[in-house]
């Protein structure tokens, strides 16, 4: 038997076709560069996700923004074939529309997870398989480690760069096919490799915000797609007092303090809840935001066994990408794909639409979407078939 190559495949590097998802940024460029240097048969794919010209309201451009151009130039320099795949329609349907739906439903969505789940790890994985790729490598900072029962997802070695929160929805089958060569690396190491490999984008700043909202004003996109998200409504205190009016639920996220335009209280006011059916933004004191139990939908399980053990598990959970993990007990829900989370200590700003990701130390055990408290027949925004009915 042939020994395993550095990607864990039993073939020599030059017989192993690795598709690299190249965004035009430093990380994916370095990923392509190191694999090409190791002698793999590297093929670069860049996804055309939205009309960049339309997004920045410039004159109609023939498709590509700067990032696609950068990816092409990096591929040229590395002397690897490179292709642009058009996923505009599916990105619109599976990411942008769902992003807007989520706001209408009173949530705060994470479009990057939706994109990873759909366009990247469903469609791009298929495209990579279609052209005979042995695996798909990305520039994500996350580790894929082979355990006793197959590949496991682990946090990146560089804690400041760890992207595991955004990858909780990666299925076992996808994880099997994916590779993350940068997961074991510190970011400065990647930057210096970029210089060594003569990658032109070595000094390019890291991407910020949401890619399809280059202006930073996501509310424009949401209200264009879902005008009801800009419907004015009342700002109501948890005790029932109407505190003022707002210009649409799209402008609010649970836990928000600034920009409420209401005051006169002894303590600062926070958004505690958003009620999409009445277009009400409910505010209260910090203590009103505290929650210690909530439901999850769309749960993906990557730990041992087929799912969360019936008696529940102990794990650390992250409720926001920027938050440190906190101790919790996780119980299976009453329907498949659901779970209940009980935090050891109550936490402020448990925000519907954000992810709750389970960790056992460095290992990702899975995660799910934080459901709205008042949602009875809640369908997570990433699974809705059609536009959510809003009354």
């Amino acid at each position, binding site marked *: 038997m042939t020994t395993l190559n550095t990607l864990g495949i039993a073939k020599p590097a030059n017989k192993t076709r690795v598709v690299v998802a190249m965004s035009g940024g430093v990380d994916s460029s370095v990923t392509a560069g190191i694999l090409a240097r190791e002698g793999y048969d590297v093929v670069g794919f860049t996804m055309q996700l939205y009309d960049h010209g339309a997004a920045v309201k410039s004159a109609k451009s023939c498709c590509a923004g700067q990032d696609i151009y950068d990816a092409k130039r990096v591929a040229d320099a590395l002397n690897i074939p490179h*292709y642009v795949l058009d996923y505009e329609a599916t990105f619109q349907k599976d990411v942008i529309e769902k992003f807007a739906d989520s706001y209408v439903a009173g949530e705060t969505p994470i479009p990057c997870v939706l994109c990873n789940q759909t366009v990247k790890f469903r469609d791009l994985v298929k495209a990579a398989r279609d*052209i005979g790729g042995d695996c798909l490598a990305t520039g994500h900072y996350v580790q894929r480690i082979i355990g006793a029962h197959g590949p496991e997802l682990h946090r990146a070695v560089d804690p400041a760069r760890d992207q595991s929160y955004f990858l909780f929805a990666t299925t076992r089958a996808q994880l099997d096919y994916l590779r993350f060569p940068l997961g074991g690396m510190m970011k400065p190491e990647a930057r210096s490799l970029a210089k060594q490999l003569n990658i032109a984008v070595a000094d390019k700043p890291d991407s910020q915000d949401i890619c399809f909202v280059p202006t930073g004003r996501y509310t424009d996109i949401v209200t264009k797609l879902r005008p009801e998200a800009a419907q004015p409504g009342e700002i109501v205190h948890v005790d029932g007092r109407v505190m003022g009016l707002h210009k649409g639920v799209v402008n609010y996220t649970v836990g928000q303090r600034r920009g409420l335009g209401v005051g006169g209280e002894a303590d600062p006011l926070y958004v505690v809840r958003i009620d999409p059916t009445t277009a009400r933004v409910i505010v209260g004191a910090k203590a009103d935001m505290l929650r210690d139990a909530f439901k999850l939908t769309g749960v993906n399980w990557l730990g041992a066994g087929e799912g969360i053990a019936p008696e529940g598990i102990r794990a650390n959970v992250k409720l926001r990408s920027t938050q440190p993990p906190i101790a919790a007990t996780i119980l299976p829900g009453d329907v498949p794909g659901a779970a209940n989370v009980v935090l050891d200590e109550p936490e402020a700003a448990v925000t519907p639409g954000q992810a709750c990701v389970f960790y056992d130390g460095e290992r990702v055990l899975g995660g799910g979407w934080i459901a709205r408290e008042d949602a009875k027949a809640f369908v997570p925004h990433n699974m809705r078939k059609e536009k959510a009915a809003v009354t």
Partner: protein
Amino acid sequence: MTRPQLIYLDHNATTPLSPEAKAAMSAAFEVPGNPSSIHRAGRAARALVEDAREAVAALAGAKPADVVFTAGGTEANALALRGLVRAMGCRAALCSMVEHPSVIANMTDVESFLAVDANGVVDVAALQQRLKNMPSPVLVSVMLANNETGALQPVAEIARLVHEAGGYVHCDAVQAPGRLSFSLASLGVDALTLSAHKFGGPKGVGALVMRAGLKVTPLFEGGGQEKSRRSGTENVIGIAGFGAAAKTVPQRLSAVAKIASLRDGIEARIVQSVPGAVIHAKSAARLPNTICVSVPGVASQTQVIQLDLAGVCVSTGSACSSGKISLSHVLKAMGVADELTATAIRVSLGVETTEADANAFLESYIPIALGQAGGNA
């Protein structure tokens, strides 16, 4: 990684530079003058331009004075469509639905487009009807051969009808030289567009060939070169290559039978080996070198990428500069279902294409078309 040997089957996109054009261009590099200068160096440059003009005129069966050099087919189309409309006082312009984007982009009215049949051929009877209800004079632009399918248009017949109605006819003939015999007179058109790189010349040089007596308003003002029809110092090196390539057209035409037989062989093998394969415009009169084929179930892009990774260059119907692919407007106009349009590729042969190239293409293509390549799925 060592890459497989290149098999180039995308001659409708561009052709390799011919040795003749390359030699002429190398010689032109040595000539320092500006063709408008009165000194010896200028005269030498002028001579290169005028020699080329004669060769290009001969290719189109026109007089040297009829040839206006441009920076390619797109500019020649724009000059014809905007310039003729303005200078000749045309009150409307029409073109077929299967024209190149550089023609379509010059149409200002959504009513400007002429329907085509299932082979992509203009419906002449419908055109005749349209002409009865149009303000006169009208400018009609119809291509000689389609870049995606190779289908030929009844240009001479269209020209006759349009002239009877008092209009003018422009023909985008960029795909025709070396693949089809034609002349300004045999087509009966008023103006036609040529592009050097479609028959062994360099990229970035073209010409509008126009019947004597016609006027065009230039696209931009300047030093008044090309009889004030196209200002700007002539691209002497490119034009020299264009002229040399024009002189190779008779040789190229003599290879047409060989190319057609390679094409027929490829098409027969595809139809025989790939169930459900559709050759577009197969029953139309068409160029000898062009195959536009759909296979159910395998996206065009996947096919083109897989073929490229195997060293075979073919193209999808229409790709923009970034590589993003949109459904072909040509196949759409022909009424081809979207599922088939989304799986179409274009294979276009050239004078240097060999039987071995054809076989190498088929060896790669057939498993891809059958969905058997890739393997991991």
